[in-house]
């Protein structure tokens, strides 16, 4: 059973009379433990797709099976639970809480989880460590660089130890050095801890860190292939 299975997924945005068909029948599946990069031109529907996969927005057609069960069959509280425990989302715009320390930002998902309160601090500290920000743990977002903010966002996404981490252009706003650090973290999460990772990027270089690249165009899958020469962010070498 695939972790994620899409069949003819559609998303139509309606604003009054205007209809935008952002997704027009997308089908593919993702197995547990995969590292998938989604690429495509601006406006092709990448973010829309990721939001649907992340249970942030419902599809308007087709079928989305998550862990073998249809997404539309989940109730509201079940969806909250899935967002909380099974999925981690890294937004392109960071979306950190202002005037809130790195530790408290990372702890946020735990507030809504069934993890006992006494474990919160330790779990959050570990997640901050994992993204190499221990020295910034009591800083507030305004005191952090863009790359550091994105790493906080990643720490927040992985603090509940989710099945899947979604990342919408996590390196889009960063210079190549910070971008590489992010990719290194994601690769490590994928390799060593077996997290499934689905990431959007428009840079081929970044996409080549994944094991598979899906190209989207005009709301349809254009191509879906494995990466033959996968990049390693830690050594910057190519893997065979």
């Amino acid at each position: 059973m695939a972790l994620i299975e899409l069949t003819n997924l559609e998303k139509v945005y309606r604003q009054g009379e205007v209809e935008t068909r952002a997704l027009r029948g997308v089908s593919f599946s993702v197995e547990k433990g995969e590292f998938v990069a989604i690429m495509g031109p601006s406006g092709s529907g990448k973010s829309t797709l990721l939001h649907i996969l992340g249970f942030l927005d419902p599809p308007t057609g087709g079928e989305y099976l998550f862990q073998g069960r249809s997404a539309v069959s989940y109730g509201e509280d079940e969806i909250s639970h899935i967002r909380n425990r099974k999925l981690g989302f890294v937004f392109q715009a960071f979306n950190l809480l202002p005037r809130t320390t790195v530790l408290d930002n990372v702890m946020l998902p735990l507030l809504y989880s069934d993890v006992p309160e006494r474990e919160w601090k330790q779990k959050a500290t570990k997640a901050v460590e994992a993204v190499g920000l221990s020295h910034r743990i009591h800083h507030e977002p305004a005191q952090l660089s863009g790359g550091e903010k994105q790493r906080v966002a990643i720490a927040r996404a992985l603090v509940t130890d989710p099945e899947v981490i979604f990342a919408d252009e996590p390196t889009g706003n960063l210079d190549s050095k910070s971008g590489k650090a992010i990719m290194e973290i994601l690769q490590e999460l994928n390799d060593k801890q077996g997290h499934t990772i689905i990431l959007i990027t428009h840079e081929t270089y970044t996409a080549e860190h994944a094991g598979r690249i899906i190209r989207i165009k005009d709301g349809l899958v254009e191509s879906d292939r494995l990466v033959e020469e996968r990049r390693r962010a830690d050594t910057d070498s190519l893997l065979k």
Partner: protein
Amino acid sequence: MYLRYTLKTAFSGLRRNTGRSLLTILGIVIGITAIMIVLSVGEGAESLILNQVSALGAQTVIVEPGRQPSGPADFAEIFTDSLKQREREALENPANVRGVDFVVPEVIAVAALSNESETTRVNVIGTAPDIQEILAISANEGTFITEDDVRQAASSVVLGATVKEDLFGSAPALGKKIKIKGRTFRVVGLIDPTGQVGFLNVDEIAIIPYTTAQRYLLGIDHFNVLWLHAESGEAVSRVVRDVELTLRELHDIDDPEKDDFHVVTQEDAIESIGIITTVLTALLTSVAAISLVVGGVGIMNIMLVSVSERTREIGLRKAVGARNEDIMAQFLIEAVMLTGIGGIVGIVLGALFSFIAALILAQVVGTDWEFIFSITAAVAGLLVASTIGLVFGIYPARQAAQKSPIEALRFE
């Protein structure tokens, strides 16, 4: 979600906009302050009056002419001349009314007293020696008026402390002559400062024999009050009943509605004072409550602004797993905190102003007005304030909870 974090979250939400939060709760603060003052002053007034009424003693039964006043129109009734010597004697007869130690008549005249150049207008009470026991007073210097004075309609007068002060200053007054309505009286006794007893400020009266007052000051033959002293507190209700039966028989009254007299006991007085102050307090409180409603609408308004400002935050929380209830709780708690703080500030300010009011009233009324900090009012105030937060917070909190995470995150 754990309460501690919900509280922390709500609190940091408020702190982010301290200035605005303070302005928002102003309506609540004013409302609660006003209610606190009304309740405190109301209770102060009630306890003051009750203390004075209690000073009359539980054994005192007052018979007054006219029907029980139930409105301003009945006020003239107290001038009815239905109580005369005949009625007094009927009530003194143990065959009619059992368990009465004695009956004291009283007539009241407002008159000018003068001592050469000094003049003062006071209540002149025409009564008998037994009034000493009813009002728990006596002449601290000289003698009180005597039965002989009453029999002879003597021109003897006993002065309250303030009256003496006004007429004589610190000079000796005993044995001196004063004029009341042109008639010369001899000061036979002086009463030390006593203050309020029942409805009477003893310091501001002059006491003369009732016969003298009836004959020379008023030219009447009826009484304004008959004081009855029951032999015990338990006897009072029987005395009241006997008095009513006796006077009705004497006056040929079959229908109690047509009574030309009424009987007041300490218990009655306490009850009717309770009713008056309760009605007044309720009236004033409801005026203050309007400000609470206005305050509540202000809270709702500002919460809506806050929800809209924090749309992205709400989206993020939902994206990481917050349920609708979690978001709802967060904003409700924030609203309740706002109004709760308003309530606490209102209670403190209310207590402060009531204290100041008590000081001023003590000066004005001239008695020991008690400052009462009503715990009940404080608790009620806090509850009301919090409830307002809850009620007016629900709509904004629902607005927040119903946001879709992705739309909220996309909100600029």
